[in-house]
């Protein structure tokens, strides 16, 4: 851990566990005209040092996401637990497309399972969860360094920056 330039502190361990659970993952980027695009993700992986987050998406649904990332690297990802409404948003400015690993495929499969359980817990059917998630035969991975985290659970505290 030497030679690292000054940077945001790593993600809190609790938040790291939370965003890797059965939460909804929604990824936003923006183009040169400052118009944001958005896609629902298929899971998330946090690096061991909790400084880097990788979100998985189905590339055919990515819209302008890849172009946007290639041009400006700006990203915002919201993670929300359907049953509790607990929600946090991470932002970064160095997003880039990275290679999908076999571990990522396992993460996406596991995420679909956990997320479906979550939805069933609050009254949705397994079939509905599967339909929203859709078929995900291929995966793409986008990695970024979270530079800011925000509490977004509905309520008066929504939008507050989370302490490191």
């Amino acid at each position, binding site marked *: 851990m030497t030679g690292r330039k000054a940077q945001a502190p790593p993600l809190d361990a609790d938040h790291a566990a939370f965003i890797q659970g059965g939460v909804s993952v*929604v*990824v*936003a*980027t*923006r183009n040169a*005209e*400052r*118009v*944001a*695009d*958005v*896609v*629902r993700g298929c899971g998330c992986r946090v690096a061991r040092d909790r400084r880097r987050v990788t979100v998985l998406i*189905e590339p*055919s*649904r990515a*819209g302008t996401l890849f172009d946007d990332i290639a041009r*400006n690297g*700006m*990203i*915002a*990802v*919201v993670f*929300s637990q359907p049953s509790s*409404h607990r*929600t946090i*948003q991470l*932002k970064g*400015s160095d997003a880039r497309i990275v290679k999908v690993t076999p571990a990522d495929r396992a993460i996406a499969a596991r995420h679909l399972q956990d997320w479906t359980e979550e939805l069933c817990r609050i009254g949705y059917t397994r*079939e*509905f*969860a*599967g*339909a*929203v*998630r*859709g*078929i*995900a035969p291929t995966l793409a991975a986008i990695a970024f360094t979270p530079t800011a985290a*925000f509490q*977004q659970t*509905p*309520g*008066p505290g*929504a*939008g507050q920056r989370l302490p490191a």
Partner: protein
Amino acid sequence: MPLTLHAIRPCFEGAVPAVIATCALDGTPNVSYISEVHYVDQQHVALSFQFFSKTRQNVLENPRATVLVIHPDTGAQYKLAVRYLRTEDSGPLFECMKAKLAGIASHSGMTGVFRLRGSDVYRVESISEVYGTGIAPSATSAAGAAELRACMARLAAAADLEGLLDALLDGLAAHFGIEQAMVLLADTRGERLYTVASRGYPQSGVGAEIRPGEGVIGMAAQARTPIRISHATSEFGYGRAMREDARSHGMSAGLDVEIPFPGLPGSQSQIAVPIMAGGRLLGVLFAESAATSRFGYDDEDALMVLASHVGAVAALLEEREDSHEEAPPAPERARPEGTPLRIRRYAENDSIFAGEDYLIKGVAGAILWKLLRNFVDERRTEHTNRELRLDPSIRLPDLSENLEARLILLQRRLAERCPELAIEKTGRGRFRFSVRRPVHLAEIPR
């Protein structure tokens, strides 16, 4: 065929949360959940503004955004490219969204947290379906043109206001499977809505009143807009509105003159639509169900069409009722026999009691008293609507007041609470007041 907002209206029922992605002027994207995306028309949606959020700050400085919604039946995702136009913090759209949000909050355990500050109106610039999501929808029985047509045919057969309202409620049950429904009419001063017809309740509740602005029904009347909730919410429960009404109007002298509002215990879905006639609020059509999310946009459309038709026909019938046919000869009647029924009238609010039972108050109360006096003083039983309308003792708030509606209310109330007295229609614009037991009238001064 390009996707239209209309085609994906179920996405805007609030059943599945939507998300919005925005971008700050400095280029930082933001993504956030939205509690309520509301269908405004073919080109516009409105988003609930509840908190001063980054999303809101962003759209105020950079109005272009992307909204992702989910179809509650198929799970398909749709992406809307939108542009922020304006915020409304009062009026029909706002009230409609406020009621719906209260239902959504209740459903998601967010009562007290979700509070609508404004309705942010966006123009929808394009819609696309997200690839590979969604399943084929199961066949649903949405209210359609065929049901509407069958219901309209019933309405066309009605000869008077009473028949019209009965046809409406029967039609809703027969063609739309709406088991619990009622019609409330408004007094012209806009102070009260009173129930004149209902279906599907153990007690008809005829005569029960609601004030504009209270609950789903009162809000539909006040804002002249359909109000619909899909999950029970205390905020819009008529139970609360009625209790508070009773408290704040605690009649003096211990007169219990509240007729209990009918209403379904365990009601989850409710819809109220205004019945308008030429820019004037005639009343409200209300339906409810113990099932959640029972009424969708299609039902709302159907009820609005029916209500506007009923409004127009009611206005025509009202004009007709003021002219009247020649009276048939009054039948010779034996004088009623038996122990006299003591009928008291309290001047304070024109409330009338038969024995110890509260019957009716207000304008309908004044009409009943007039009919009783005519019977006692002149043995007169035959009456015309016109004569009542012009009678100064009845004090109709104004000439456009719907007298026929008051007569229906009175007729039904008598049938339920005091069958010794009855109003029987004898022709267009005229009726007979039958008294089947001797009466003794007493006026209780203020």
